[in-house]
């Protein structure tokens, strides 16, 4: 049944599997997972709140299969990211949210959800063989996923759905013209970016987010290469440490000397547009933005894109990691049914679909490491390789604190100011002092 569920979780196959297992039972062979009762909550109606994204699209596209499998009626909605965050906070604060299942961005909402105690404890359900497929075990999730999913007490509060590693997209054609190889270190990254830049031909070596707030993961990702991060485990701000200042200076150099004009206002969409035109040598961003690059209707760089693991920093090689998960709200009256939906959402079948369509990268190792699954991936092999190589060196891109948005806004303004000639040390000191009381208030409340 595991195999059946993992491949095509349709009702027909489920029933066929049940019949087969019944046969096995008669023969005296009765595996533990035979007791999973997918239709235990048939007739229940659950509300699902999703972030508008390729992950949300995929879940909605196949939700009829879940309904056929379980008999649970699903009413789902996708809300654009920013608005979804507002909606969920307001509803969850009320204690009676209108949804049973909630999709969350770990890198922004994890600590907030934990502090608000808004998510149900899933650890009991995961241990219950009547509710959980035996293939769904903690050890199958990448470490970053478990860090995201567990609260400070080690209790699983959500199912890790999709991970986003930060990689370097590079234009192999432009590199070849200059006789350059893919950069393996930060120094080589800077050298390549500057060598590729030629404003006369409207060609630039590097692009990344410059817009306030969106730009912070770029800087914090560079900082990871110095074997440190933005906030220490004791909630101590490290944002104006010598390493943080060096990373900011690196950000300033890359974005001032090698990036297209106006990059201070670029979010990922503008970066992607610039890279799609074939006039940018490298684009540094999450791995999930890759599919349009290989779409001939949208891209002038089809077949010319290399997908590179983050170059090694002065101390370590680290791939910045963000991700999203799916959980059951603590106020839901249909927790078990909602849990079944979450389990289906992170199942191997759905993970395979996400990966093969390039809509996301599942946290489950059994999906990523399955050669059969990898064969079906529409993206080039180097993309899958970059994903696989990033997993062992993944580190969280953003601090696990409640005021993540304020952190990103405050530090983001400092980073944007660097692009107008600001001094990295001065800007980071100012931003750190501005954010310090905000963090202190957040930790105290």
């Amino acid at each position, binding site marked *: 049944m595991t195999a059946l569920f993992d491949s095509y979780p349709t009702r027909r196959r489920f029933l066929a599997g049940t019949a087969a297992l019944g046969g096995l039972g008669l023969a005296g062979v009765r595996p533990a997972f035979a007791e999973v009762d997918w239709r235990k909550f048939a007739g229940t109606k659950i509300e699902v709140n999703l972030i508008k994204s390729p992950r949300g699209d995929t879940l909605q596209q196949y939700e009829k299969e879940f309904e056929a499998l379980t008999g649970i009626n699903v009413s789902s909605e996708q809300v654009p990211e920013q608005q979804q965050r507002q909606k969920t906070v*307001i509803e969850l604060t009320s204690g009676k949210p209108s949804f049973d299942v909630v999709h969350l961005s770990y890198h922004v909402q994890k600590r907030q959800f934990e502090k608000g105690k808004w998510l149900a404890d899933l650890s009991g359900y995961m241990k219950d063989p009547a509710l959980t497929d035996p293939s769904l075990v903690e050890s199958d999730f990448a470490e970053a996923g478990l860090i995201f999913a567990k609260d400070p007490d080690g209790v699983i509060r959500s199912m890790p759905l999709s991970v986003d590693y930060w990689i370097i997209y590079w234009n192999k054609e432009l590199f070849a013209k200059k006789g350059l190889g893919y950069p393996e270190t930060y120094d080589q990254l800077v050298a390549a970016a500057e060598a590729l830049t030629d404003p006369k031909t409207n060609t630039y070596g590097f692009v990344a987010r410059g817009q306030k707030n969106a730009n912070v993961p770029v800087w914090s990702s560079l900082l990871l290469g110095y074997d440190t991060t933005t906030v220490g485990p004791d909630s101590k701000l490290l944002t104006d440490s010598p390493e943080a200042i060096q990373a900011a200076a690196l950000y300033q150099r890359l974005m001032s000397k090698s990036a297209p004009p106006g990059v*201070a*206002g670029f979010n990922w969409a503008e970066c992607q*547009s610039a890279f799609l035109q074939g006039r940018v040598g490298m684009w540094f961003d999450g791995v999930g933005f890759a599919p349009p690059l290989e779409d001939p209707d949208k891209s002038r760089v089809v077949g010319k894109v290399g997908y590179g693991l983050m170059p090694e920093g002065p101390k370590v090689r680290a791939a910045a990691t963000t991700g999203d998960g799916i959980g059951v709200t603590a106020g839901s009256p249909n927790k078990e049914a909602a849990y079944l939906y979450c389990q289906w959402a992170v199942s191997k079948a759905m993970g395979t679909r996400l990966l093969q369509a390039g809509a996301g990268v599942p946290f489950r190792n059994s999906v990523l490491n399955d050669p059969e699954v990898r064969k079906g991936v529409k993206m080039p092999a180097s993309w899958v390789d970059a994903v696989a190589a990033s997993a062992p060196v993944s580190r969280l891109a953003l601090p696990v604190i409640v005021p993540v948005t304020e952190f990103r806004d405050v530090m983001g303004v400092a980073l944007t100011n660097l692009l107008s000639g600001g001094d990295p040390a001065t800007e980071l000191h100012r931003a750190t002092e501005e954010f310090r009381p905000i963090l202190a208030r957040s930790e105290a409340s």
Partner: protein
Amino acid sequence: MSDYGTTLAGASAAPPAVPAEVARRRSYWIFILPAVVTVGAVILFPWVFTLWMSLNEWKLGESRHFIGFANYLRLAVDGRFRDALWHTLVYTALSVLAPLVLGTLAALIFNERLPLRGLLRGIFVMPMMATPVAVALVWTMMFNPQLGVLNYLLSLVGIGPQAWVFHPASVIPSLVMVETWQWTPLVMLIVLGGLATLPAEPYESADIDGATGWQKFRYITLPMIAPFLLLAGMIRTVDALKSFDIIYAITQGGPGTASETINLYLYSVAFAYYDVGYGSAIAVVFFVLIVALSLVLLHLRQRSKWNEIGDAG
């Protein structure tokens, strides 16, 4: 009310008309009650609640504490708020002046008997009918430094590429350009209405006296359409002060906070940081600012009624 009734009843000997009057007045309350309830629920209560929230430290998902005027004191030393206030004033001033000047010019042109005047007027007012977010998306693409049509057009006349909304120095003028493009037709319509009401006699006299076109505009047309310009200015001022959609959709207040107006800052504080207490304090201060500016403009409008021009002269 009842004391008044009692006093009157005691003062005169016995006319029963007064209690009847009181009863009649009391019956009026029934008629105004729906309006009172509606205004109270829709306008008064939200404002009283906002005022109350502004006196609390209150973040969604966390406990609430009464802190008196601490949020207002925090505003006084909040550099980002001061910057936002300055951006709001600059943006408003430019977004009022540019459409006023261009709208008046357009009205003067479309007031003439041009061929296809109706059609051209119709085309000219079309930007006003577009949804601000759709307008913003179109302009965002046009502003793109590498792919946008604006830089392409500049290159045709030998001007180098500009950063438009992607540079702190040019972002507010670029946004004002969008606002002007969309709202100049409104000013034109208002001024056209004013021009249609102007009498012909002053112009005939001016022609006899040999006045030039500029003199007729400066000394006859402009003073007589002044009330209409003030009306347009007032509408534009309140609109520009409240402007959110175009700025948010194009720049989200960036680069950095270079185009962050009070509205955008308020949105971030209340809906991104969930700090509804501090956000309410910003809303209260912003409301006071809008009311104060509106009163000034109303006062100016009262003074500029064109039927009083003759008296003043």
